[in-house]
């Protein structure tokens, strides 16, 4: 009985972890589906500005969409290389995915702050509420994905615990600085953090990340069990990451491309 549990044998003939991940992704479709539906239902119903045609910036969002698509490409290359036995190359592609995810988050932080300066917050109008909730939850998913990928890559790339802690700490400080800036300037949910503090944390984190990546030493594992485990776990992270990407594909079309010309409602 214990052997059966250890080997994840089930009647479907597929891996239990992967099955659970697909069930989760199916349910997450409903989660984002509800936000997108709400946005569409309340589209063109804001009684006060700013309206989408006044603030949405299509060229910038197209670039951020491109970045996220390329992060998906990096992710699939990471999985592909690990499956082919080139673990080190796979781990670097995993880090590249996380880095592109961070760039995408940077675009989102910029966009949120820019909108706040133009007078659009979640409290301004119904467009602001539905827009920030939907894209904010998507950003939350991206953040979680970046953390997952960084921990995954670093735990296998770095050899000493000190080095692992240094890199993970650095990346976390970048994320915290970005999230802090966004929450202060846009969402107004925490007391005002001086910009200098946020930028300092961001800078220190960035220098720490680049410096510690330079010091990395790594090698391919020969242990077949370890390879299989790494391959399986990376595939799960990859599925999650691609899901975040397809959600953005839908949001980019529905919110940006289709709604970008929406103005004041015709009463």
């Amino acid at each position, binding site marked *: 009985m214990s052997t059966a549990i250890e080997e994840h044998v089930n009647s*479907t*003939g*597929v891996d239990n972890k*992967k*099955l659970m991940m*697909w*069930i989760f*992704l*199916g*349910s*997450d*479709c*409903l989660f*984002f*589906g*509800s936000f*997108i*539906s709400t946005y*569409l*239902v309340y589209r063109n119903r804001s009684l006060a500005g700013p309206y989408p045609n006044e603030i949405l910036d*299509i*060229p910038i969002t*197209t670039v951020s*969409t*491109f970045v996220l*698509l*390329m992060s*998906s*490409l990096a*992710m*699939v*290359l990471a999985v*592909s*290389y690990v*499956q082919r036995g080139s673990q080190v190359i796979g781990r670097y592609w995993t880090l590249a995915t996380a880095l592109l995810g961070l760039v995408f988050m940077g675009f989102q932080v910029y966009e949120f702050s820019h909108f706040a300066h133009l007078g659009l917050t979640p409290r301004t109008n119904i467009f602001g509420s539905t827009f920030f909730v939907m894209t904010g939850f998507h950003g939350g998913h991206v953040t979680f994905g970046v953390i997952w990928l960084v921990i995954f890559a670093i735990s296998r790339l770095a050899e000493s615990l000190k080095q692992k802690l240094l890199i993970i700490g650095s990346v976390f400080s970048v994320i915290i600085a970005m999230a802090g800036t966004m929450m202060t300037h846009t969402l107004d949910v925490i007391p005002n953090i001086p910009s200098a503090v946020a930028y300092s944390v961001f800078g220190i984190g960035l220098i720490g990340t680049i410096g510690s990546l330079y010091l990395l030493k790594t090698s391919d594992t020969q242990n077949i069990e370890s390879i299989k485990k790494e391959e399986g776990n990376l*595939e799960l992270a*990859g*599925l999650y990451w*691609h*899901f975040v*990407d*397809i959600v953005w*594909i*839908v949001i*980019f*079309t529905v919110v940006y*491309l*289709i709604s*970008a010309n929406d103005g004041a409602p015709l009463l």
Partner: protein
Amino acid sequence: MKKLFRNIWNQFLGHSTDGYFRVPDTPQDLPEPENDTPWAGTLKLSMEKFNKLTRKNGHGTPAFYAIVGLILAVITLVEFLIFYVESLGVLLIPIMLILSLMKFVIVVAFFMHLRFDNKLFTYLFFAGFILAAVIAVALLVLLAIKP
């Protein structure tokens, strides 16, 4: 005459091996319309080529994924360019939805490996996706109707 009727009766019952009424019982006996037309084998050949091109029998190579990534980038560029074509008017929405659906399917099929993986995953994922889409459409229709 009696022999003729007996022969027809036997054929009807399927006793004869080459009778007109004989029920086909092996795959070789079944008619193959796709092989009996001037386009014989075209569909099969196309499907084989498509399956080979989309790596139905195994995971893609890094070069294959790079090409898929390039296609996704090109579709995004096309979306961006189409957005500024003012003459499209209301056609913009269906065109954008089709392009978006293409990107969605490409990512799900190749990057998420549904093209190569167990069909159970496809059913589980699309159960959630289709339910979400139906709820969205139902909400839009219900709230568009004014009392």
